[in-house]
């Protein structure tokens, strides 16, 4: 049950990877990277349930935080060409 859901989410992430590669502007790519990151959180939680290791949920929580910060870092770099 969990592995079928994980396969479906991975297929959706590959569909969005098309937009991240082809997307005509930088903002499309930033949006696609944000969606792929949030799908990765769900994939990590599902992996923790597939292999019966609940420690993967900590990784998922930290990945959600890093993904949120990374989106804003990418936007700031696009807007001002520097990160300070």
């Amino acid at each position, binding site marked *: 049950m969990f592995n079928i859901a994980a396969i479906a*989410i991975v297929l959706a992430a590959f569909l*969005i990877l098309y937009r991240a590669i082809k997307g005509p502007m930088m903002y499309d790519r930033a949006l*696609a990277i944000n969606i792929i990151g949030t799908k990765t959180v*769900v994939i990590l939680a599902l992996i923790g349930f597939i292999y019966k290791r*609940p420690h993967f949920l900590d990784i998922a*929580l930290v990945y*959600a935080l890093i993904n949120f910060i990374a989106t804003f870092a990418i936007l700031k770099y696009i*807007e001002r060409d520097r990160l300070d």
Partner: protein
Amino acid sequence: MNITTIITAIFLTIGCFFSVVAAIGVVRFPDFYSRMHPAGKNDTLGQTLILIGLIIYEGFSFVSIKLLLIIIFIFIANPTATHAIAKAAYLAGLKPWEKEEKK
């Protein structure tokens, strides 16, 4: 097969449906601003449904509290990030898409 597994399977199915529909929408929509729509709402709902299904499967324990924390954070952070991307694109001067025959 007990009732908890069936409810979990239903939640996982609906969540996977919303996630795949969000991916198709991001690939197929014609404009950047219309691509924000499946990214901001559909994706958040799909992930929340999948994680709620995992909570129901687990029952009340420390694991389900961690899952609840992930749900709350994603529910706050994902629309915020989408809104930030939209505002950055708008301030950069990106025009919304129109039909060609209107011009």
